[in-house]
């Protein structure tokens, strides 16, 4: 809560605004680089602006995950594993099982990709479990106008990952099936005809259907994660508002927050797992030849 924001809607809006760095327009028409202090300013910055909080938190969390796993990987032993190695091996084994179960091709990228997706998204989602006001309050005290703690409630983050996965899907589709094979997959199915002329007539229809299927992959990946996390965050914010409305509502809010947080542990893990599994499935489809 920033100093001047007191009403509920202001509180909510403040919590949902990213800390955006970009080109600001000042009063006399000139521009300079800086942080947006209002939601309108952030909007005016257009595409060439950066959500510093999203990038910062996701970087820190990803680095944390890689640091932990890398430090284990450096001293890994095939003897009796201890502590951190046990945990890391458990996670790696779980991911490896998932990949082996859904991915039939041979690609050394897929398993580490899945591990990264699962743990990174899990950690980003995990930030949701921190009380919603802790870090933003601290940031406000330090003079930072906005701070959104959960990177996966920023569509930029989820679309960034989903589009990266989509790029990999396109790359491997073309690599495995060839450009013509991939084009054929998009245009020659699901409607097929013996007659060449009819087949040509079917092509645009097929392209439309398959194109929608293809495009829906990254969109659904990104929106599913974003939607779940955004809604979860919103509920935490709404519960947090109850704390400011007296003793009875406040303590009731405490119970609600506890219940929702416990339920949310399931959601954040599940969402990370779904994102990972769908990535594996999409890449598996990209590796498969259809005839």
């Amino acid at each position, binding site marked *: 809560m920033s100093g001047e924001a007191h009403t509920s809607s202001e509180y909510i809006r403040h919590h949902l605004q990213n800390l955006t760095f970009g080109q600001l327009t000042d009063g006399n028409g000139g521009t300079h680089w800086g942080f947006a202090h209002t939601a309108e300013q952030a909007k005016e910055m*257009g*595409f060439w602006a950066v*959500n510093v909080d999203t*990038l910062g938190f996701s970087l820190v969390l990803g680095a944390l995950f890689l640091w932990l796993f890398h430090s284990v*990987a450096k001293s890994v032993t*095939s003897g009796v594993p201890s502590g951190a190695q046990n945990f890391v091996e458990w996670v790696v084994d779980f991911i490896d099982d998932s990949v082996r179960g859904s991915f039939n091709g041979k690609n050394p990228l897929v398993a580490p990709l899945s591990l990264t997706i699962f743990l990174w998204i899990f950690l980003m989602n995990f930030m949701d479990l921190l009380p919603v006001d802790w870090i933003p309050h601290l940031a406000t005290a330090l003079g930072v106008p906005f701070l959104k703690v959960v990177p996966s409630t920023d*569509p930029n983050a989820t679309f960034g990952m989903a589009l990266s996965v989509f790029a990999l899907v396109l790359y491997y589709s073309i690599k495995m099936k060839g450009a013509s094979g991939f084009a054929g997959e998009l245009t020659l199915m699901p409607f097929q005809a013996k007659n060449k002329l009819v087949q040509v007539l079917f092509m645009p229809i097929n392209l439309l259907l398959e194109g929608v299927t293809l495009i829906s992959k990254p969109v659904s990946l990104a929106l599913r994660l974003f939607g779940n996390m955004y809604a979860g965050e919103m509920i935490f914010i709404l519960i947090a508002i109850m704390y400011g409305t007296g003793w009875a509502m406040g303590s009731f809010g405490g119970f609600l927050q506890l219940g929702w947080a416990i339920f949310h542990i399931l959601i954040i893990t599940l969402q990370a797992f779904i994102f990972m599994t769908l990535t594996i499935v999409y890449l598996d489809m990209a590796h498969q030849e259809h005839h």
Partner: protein
Amino acid sequence: MNINATLIGQSITFFFFVWFCMKYVWPPIMQALEARKKQIADGLAAGERGKHEQELAQKRSAEVLVEAKRQAQEIIAKAEKRAAEIVEESKTDAKSEGERILVAARAEIGQEVNRAKEGLRAQVVSIAIAGASKVLEREVDANTHNDLLTKLAAQI
């Protein structure tokens, strides 16, 4: 909630993380897991082999035991046979030796008897001569009656 360049930053970060994970995190851990899997499999196989070998050794030792028993039996039988043989041998040896001694003793006895006979004969002759000379009150010429005397002696 605006779509902006964060999208690009996030994508770059994502690809960097994936690359790092693929290069430095996944392979060593997977290698260790595979190595452990192999170690365990090897250990189990070795255990199985050891068990099998132990079974074989047990079987072999039983066989050796049976063989040893059989050999011991054989040796005992042989020894018994040999002992019987030795006894037999010494029996026959003793018998022949006894017989030999007996024969020698008999020969000696015979000789002694003959010698005694000779002595007696000579004495009988001289006694007879002495007796006869007493009876005849004269000298008997031994030389004249030698034939007679020898005949007499042979009769004794």
